[in-house]
């Protein structure tokens, strides 16, 4: 009998730890595009201001920071215009934290659809990360307008060759947000309390990242510690590219890349472990 012909699919009880089929994810690229579209349309339909809603929060936050940390607490901004300094940090941070929070409830928010049909589960977090690029670009546009205004009016800012790195910074933030998000989402299927911890943790993490203060203000003996935070190098490089001030060093960038890769790897590891059986525990 010719039963030994190739099977299209095998369902096993146990699998190895690292069991993400990237080829399969690629086969489902149409689905990723459609999910991105769905998220995007679902957010904007029937709001009057539409995308403008993405502009107001970072703008107001930057103004509030400028007042509190700049005017009242008098934390220096490396001689940069405070609003621009804060805004650069905020939009980078917003993209990362949005990716992380949105992907972190992948399993719980989608348990309905996951319970009915199979498709690579990674499709959902990947599409979330892509959707958030749009809101980042809108905020980035706002940043550019304010940036050009300062540039023309002669503020001491000097854009430089590091600008070429900005797309890569975006990719790194996406990878880090995705990695953290899926790591948390895998753990929340068992430990629901992590969802609450995340809300608090993300706040603290922001203050551990040079957003309201420049890296140059960090005491020398703590530089190694803040460099362990992968977002430090990202935010500092982002700012350096546009403003030309800061003190980022190449070892910090390499360290940040290594940690990002590690978190993404760990996230995928846990995700692939959980995705096969989470329906039984949610």
């Amino acid at each position, binding site marked *: 009998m010719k039963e030994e012909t190739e099977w*299209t699919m095998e369902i096993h*009880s146990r699998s190895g730890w690292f069991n993400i089929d990237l080829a399969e994810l690629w086969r489902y690229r*149409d689905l990723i595009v459609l999910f991105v579209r769905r998220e995007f349309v679902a957010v904007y*339909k029937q709001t009057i201001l539409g995308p403008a809603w993405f502009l107001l929060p970072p703008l107001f936050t930057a103004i509030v920071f400028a007042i509190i940390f700049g005017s009242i607490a008098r934390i220096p901004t490396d001689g940069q215009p405070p609003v621009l300094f804060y805004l650069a940090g905020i939009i980078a941070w917003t993209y990362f934290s949005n990716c992380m929070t949105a992907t972190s409830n992948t399993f719980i928010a989608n348990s309905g659809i996951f319970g009915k049909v*199979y498709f690579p589960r990674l499709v959902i977090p990947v599409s979330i990360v892509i959707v958030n690029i749009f809101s980042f670009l809108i905020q980035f546009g706002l940043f550019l307008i304010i940036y050009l205004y300062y540039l023309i009016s002669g503020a001491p800012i000097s854009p430089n060759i590091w600008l070429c790195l900005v797309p890569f910074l975006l990719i790194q933030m996406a990878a880090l947000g995705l990695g953290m998000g899926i790591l948390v989402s895998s753990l929340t299927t068992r430990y629901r309390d992590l969802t609450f911890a995340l809300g608090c943790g993300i706040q603290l993490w922001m203050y551990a990242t040079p957003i309201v203060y420049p890296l140059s203000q960090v005491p020398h003996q703590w530089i190694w510690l803040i460099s362990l935070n992968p977002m430090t190098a990202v935010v500092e490089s982002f700012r350096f590219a546009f403003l030309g001030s800061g003190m980022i060093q190449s070892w910090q960038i390499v360290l940040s890349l290594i940690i990002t890769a590690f978190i993404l790897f760990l996230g995928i590891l846990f995700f692939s472990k959980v995705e096969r059986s989470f329906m039984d525990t949610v």
Partner: protein
Amino acid sequence: MSEIVIKVENISKLYRLGIISHNTLYQDIQSKWARIRGAEDPNTQIDQLNSGLKNNECECFWALKNISFDVRKGEILGIIGRNGAGKSTLLKILSRVTAPTEGKIKIKGRIASLLEVGTGFHPELTGRENVFLNGAILGMTKQEINEKFDDIVAFAEVEKFIDTPVKRYSSGMYVRLAFAVAAHLEPEILIVDEVLAVGDARFQKKCIGKMGEVAGEGRTVLFVSHNMNAVKNLCGKVILLEAGNLVYEGDTHKGIAQYVNEDRIETTTLDEEYLNSIMTGLILERNPTIRFQQITISDMNGNERATFRSDEEIKITMRYRCYTKVTNLRLLITVLDSEGNRIMNTLNYDDESELVSMPREPGTYETICRFQKNIFGEGHIFFTFGLINGDLEHVTIQKGFHIKISFYPYSSCNEKLFEFVNIRPLMSWRTKNSLREIV
């Protein structure tokens, strides 16, 4: 023989009952740390320690145990069994929603299931966008959907509204569009779970119709149902699951006979929870108009039992609730034989007094149906119940009572010449000795 397209090898699925972990990450780490040091787990329940059980050995439940079977190309396989027998778990594993605890399944071809109708539909998106999204979720590529798009829209009869957000659709249009996508999926293997296919009777009929069509094209169908008539008409082979075990595999008629003769014979009361869990038909989930509350079977003195003599009357008491004013309420009892054939119907409208008592105001009612004596013959019979509110809502209880009738007075005739049938009403027989008249 055609080739094997699904090969299930020793599939088992374990569910843990109760609390799955200690709930907090802190306690889990604490337990793990204690185990590493070889100390006692501080989070173990005291009674578990005393009874000598280890943490992992209790509260487990095998939903499936060592299931193996093959499905060949073009076959329609019926999967039958009681609620909780493991049918849905098996389908979930087959459709890769959850992974088995042990064992392996090999599959040739694409699997799709009609229980996924409308999955991922988003109310803000237009019909067109939803067709593409839903198709992609079910595994179609953009190109495939493009090719079939016109067919899908025509099938769903929503051409005019295809660029309207689906939240503006009527529920009928919504379901038709969702079904149209699933129907055009053209999988090699189709899974139909009647229990989960919530929808009106027409829709379920459409699902079943689609199934026959699919099998006609040489593709394979797995069909889960409580409706034995449908299983008998469609399936060439059945597997019977009982408490997670595969107890029968093979001929449809024998499988059904084994299933219906299972141990429901003890049941004489169906309570509200059971009735709500197994009701099928045209069900309004959110605004129910009618629901069964309790059905009991008893003799004329009110003693509940499930074995009767043929010369006894049988009393069936149905308690139900009308949530709104119901002008046209019908109650239906169908009697089936042990192979699932319908052998008898009775409707409350057959009795004129029921017609007069309409309409029914909201409230709880009790209707009694008395089966006269001397209707049934020796054997097992089954009751199914229907509660019908015009065209609005039909509640059907497919698996009602299973009772045993012993014929009385027992006729002493040669059993080889006499095959039992379930309907054996008492007729009047008279004999004249005509010979004498001739003489």
